[in-house]
């Protein structure tokens, strides 16, 4: 019947609001310019590409800010593509994260034996997918956005072509990513089959209606959630993450662990709070189990790491667990629904700053030590006091020690837990609290090494940090400290972005 309807309906040119689409248009144009310019630039001048990409991202960001300041909202293609505060907050986040990753990678890529033009092109492609994800409001757009952001990321993960570890990283990431996509797509097809629509708002209405208890709907929700659990590396679907993170070039790892993960969470926010709002009986317990496992397993394995990138990989798995906590408690009442949504958004914003900062320090330190061994951080404070201070701030922020931004991320989660107030929610809150203490061991161990241990190889040559990396460090640390003192700024963004009214 649906097919028949589709055949008879005449094709209408969708009414597009080009002003609202400006960020997407700017990013898309920039990536085309980068691709073309790459062909005409010789090797000495390839650095131009990174600045072109950077300017493009900043221009797109200006449009996002402008749209937000004016309160310019738009709904296109029958509600499948929406520009609202939620979309703008996350577009802004993705563009800023993209810019910081660019700052982190420009020297790294230039100095290594890498293909610069293609790197920036792929990075921008992936960012385009993320920017689209912010606005996607139907299953197909979400899927397209997800593939647009994932496919370039698979290639970026394997960028160190001659390194076997990097090959393994890319292959693992690719195979599991595709598997996840397939599972998700199957779930989406089930949901579409039952609800007759791919629009999230329609699905939202339908899943609260009479078909709500069809077992296959439950199965559809289950498959889609599992698919995204892969994307956000939730335990037990996390096993690709550490290998991929370790094998990929470090700036790419930063990108994957922040931007790509946030992309997955954006989709999860849309699906759970709009699409499947009425079915918290299905996703509530699922997220409970995922959150509890992800926090605990991530933290426990992180305790045993000796490589800094692997440590950060497991830490970012654990952090994803904290972000999943509000999802698990959202369904119990309206108040919890609101505060859970805000908590997830605030956590994602703060997590981006502190995690990127930590990776930026890792990149800077690796310029001298050429190793990811945690022991090589011993006595860092004697020859790189600035980097030591920054890393200390990022580590304690990740651990949630006041008065740094990470504290508020955790506090918002606990507020959501207590707003829900059900025994299972409180139990999850307790698990999160215990995990925060476990995590402190490994987060605090890095500052301890840096400040209190001797330098392992007695080599105290100072580290020269390139200007672009300095800028990345400055941006991230300013966010972590300023939000630590005045969290209201992000809290307001989190509130404004809310999709639940």
């Amino acid at each position, binding site marked *: 019947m649906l097919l028949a309807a589709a055949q008879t309906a005449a094709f209408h040119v969708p009414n597009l609001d080009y002003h609202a689409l400006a960020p997407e248009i700017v990013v898309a144009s920039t990536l085309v310019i980068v691709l073309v310019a790459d062909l005409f630039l010789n090797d000495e001048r390839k650095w131009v590409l990174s600045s072109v990409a950077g300017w493009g991202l900043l221009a797109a960001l200006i449009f996002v800010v402008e749209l937000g300041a004016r309160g310019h909202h738009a709904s296109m293609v029958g509600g499948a593509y929406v520009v609202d505060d939620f979309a703008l907050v996350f577009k802004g986040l993705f563009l800023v994260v993209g810019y910081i990753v660019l700052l982190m990678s420009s020297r790294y890529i230039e100095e290594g034996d890498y293909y610069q033009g293609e790197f920036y092109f792929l990075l921008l492609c992936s960012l385009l997918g993320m920017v689209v994800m912010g606005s996607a409001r139907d299953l197909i757009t979400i899927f397209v956005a997800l593939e647009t952001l994932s496919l370039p990321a698979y290639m970026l993960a394997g960028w160190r072509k001659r390194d076997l570890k990097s090959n393994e990283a890319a292959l693992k990431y690719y195979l599991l990513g595709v598997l996840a996509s397939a599972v998700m797509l199957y779930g989406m097809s089930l949901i579409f089959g039952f609800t007759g629509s791919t629009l999230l708002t329609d699905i939202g209405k339908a899943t609260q209606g009479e078909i709500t208890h069809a077992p296959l709907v439950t199965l559809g929700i289950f498959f889609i959630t599992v698919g995204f659990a892969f994307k956000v590396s939730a335990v037990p679907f996390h096993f690709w993450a550490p290998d991929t993170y370790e094998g990929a070039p470090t700036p790419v790892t930063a990108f994957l662990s922040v931007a790509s993960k946030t992309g997955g969470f954006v989709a999860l926010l849309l699906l759970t709070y709009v699409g499947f709002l009425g079915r918290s009986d299905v996703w509530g317990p699922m997220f409970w189990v995922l959150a509890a496992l992800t926090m605990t397993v991530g933290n426990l394995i992180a305790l045993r790491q000796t490589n800094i990138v692997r440590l950060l990989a497991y830490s970012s798995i654990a952090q994803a667990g904290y972000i999943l906590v509000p999802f698990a408690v959202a369904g119990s009442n309206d108040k919890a629904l609101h505060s859970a949504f*805000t908590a997830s958004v605030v956590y994602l914003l703060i997590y981006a700053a502190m995690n990127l900062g930590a990776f930026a320090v890792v990149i800077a330190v690796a310029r001298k030590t050429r190793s990811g061994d945690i022991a090589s951080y011993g006595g860092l*404070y004697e020859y790189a*006091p600035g980097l030591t201070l920054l890393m200390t701030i990022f580590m*304690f922020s990740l651990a949630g*020690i*006041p*008065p740094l931004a990470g*504290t*508020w991320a955790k*506090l*918002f989660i*606990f*507020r959501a837990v*207590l707003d829900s107030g059900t025994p299972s929610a409180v139990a999850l809150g307790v698990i999160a*609290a215990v995990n*925060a*203490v476990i995590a*402190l061991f490994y987060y*605090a161990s890095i*500052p*301890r090494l840096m*400040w*209190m241990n001797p330098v392992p190889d007695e080599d105290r040559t100072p580290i020269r940090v390139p200007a672009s990396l300095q800028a990345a460090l400055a941006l991230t640390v300013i966010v972590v400290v300023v939000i630590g003192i*005045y*969290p*209201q700024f992000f*809290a*307001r963004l*989190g*509130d404004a972005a809310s999709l639940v009214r």
Partner: protein
Amino acid sequence: MTFLDHWALSGAIFIPIIGAVLLGLVPRRAELTLKAGALLASLASLGLVVYLMARFDYSHSSRFQFVVNNQWIPVIHSRYHIGLDGISLPLLALSALITVLCVIYSWDHFPEPHNPKAFLILILVLATGMNGTFSALDLILFFVFFELVLLPMYFMIGVWGGPNRQYAAIKFFLFTLFGSALMILSFLALYFKGGQTFDMIALRHTIAAASLPTATASLIFAGLFIGFAIKVPMFPFHTWLPDAHTEAPTVGSVILAAILLKLGTYGFVRIAIPILPKAAHSWAPWIGLLAVIGIIYGALGCLAQRDMKRLIAFSSVAHMGFVMLGIATLTSFGINAAVFGMVAHGLITGMLFFLAGSVQERYGTRELSRLGGMLLQAPRLGWILGFCAMASLGLPGLAGFWGEFPAILSAYDPAAGLSLVTFRVYMAVAAVGTVFAAGYLLWMLQRVAFGVVKGEFEHAHIHDMHVPEYLAWAPLLILIVALGVYPNLLFHMTDGAVKAVTVGVHAATGVAAGG
């Protein structure tokens, strides 16, 4: 309210940390600039506190003055709400003073690995945390300041400490963090039960109006209790203290003893008791029990020490026991004594740790069995040690007496509804504790200052006092005498404010007795 009245308190809190940030921009080699900058920042903060003391309305010491109440995090209804009453004012003054003295004392004896820049920055960050904790009237604000002191102290012990510093630092860190995790949980519970506010003053009424079930109130109080008791530290939670004190550099020990321990007792007086008077009432006998165990245990611990600094650390456990006993009586007499005890302990034990640091610096050891005859080699240092030992053991006429004696006395007549027998037994045990205190302090004095110089130091040149020591110690010694001779100096500040705390207890226990 004039411009300065409005800004002075915020200035006293934040000038040190602004100074710390500015010091961060000064190159590491410009030591004199760094030291002068740190001194300037801490003096500016102290100057503002002195101004506040001059402007404070002592006839209304129960009222919060110099209040600033601005929006901070509207989403969770947390506000930037600060103010001073008669309890917080002396503690703020103590904290600002100790900070200045620590900067002066460090002037030219920075502990290994030297690095004055980082060391001074840590002192200034600590100052902001301490001043802020004593001024905060919002639970979240209090929590942030309370935690702000954690990291600088961790690094101070871990980097500049003794041979076993890493262990001591992490132990201190984990103990305190565990306590603050429970504390923040209780704060959140108060927030949800008390009508979604973190305001300490408003919570007194909203929690009373909410008439919580006894079990809930007790549980919330338990969270606060453990959080604060670890910081005090009370008897079973004290094990981090001797390690932290022994390993910390001199200045770290002084700040730890003089101020950080007071954050815990202050939390009881400011938050736990006024907001949950009924739960406090039912917990009081147990708090009193732990307090007297602490008095005796600390004293016995002292007698078993071979290290001078460790001995002083254990004496802190005993002295804080007296403070907690005063608080546990829930009477205005007892809490007045407790606040006096906090200030007196800050002055006296701060002094003792300074002295231990100076002994360590001169002899290269703090081992009691190797020391001796300091009066012969450095008579001024020796006499000051004697003076401080006397003050610490509670000699009448010196500040220590007015913290200890009224606290013991207050246990004779605890708040209505508390068991007289129990508290009188506590009183007797605490009185025995003072005898022990005289014992271990005189024993220490005798081992360090009296007798003849031991062989290994016979020909060593032991310098008597340095200029920075004169400057850093004089204010403390003067205050110990001044408060000892005229204790009303402090009591007339605290009395009104303490009455406001116990009013709630009377009201709540009256209800308990009637219903």
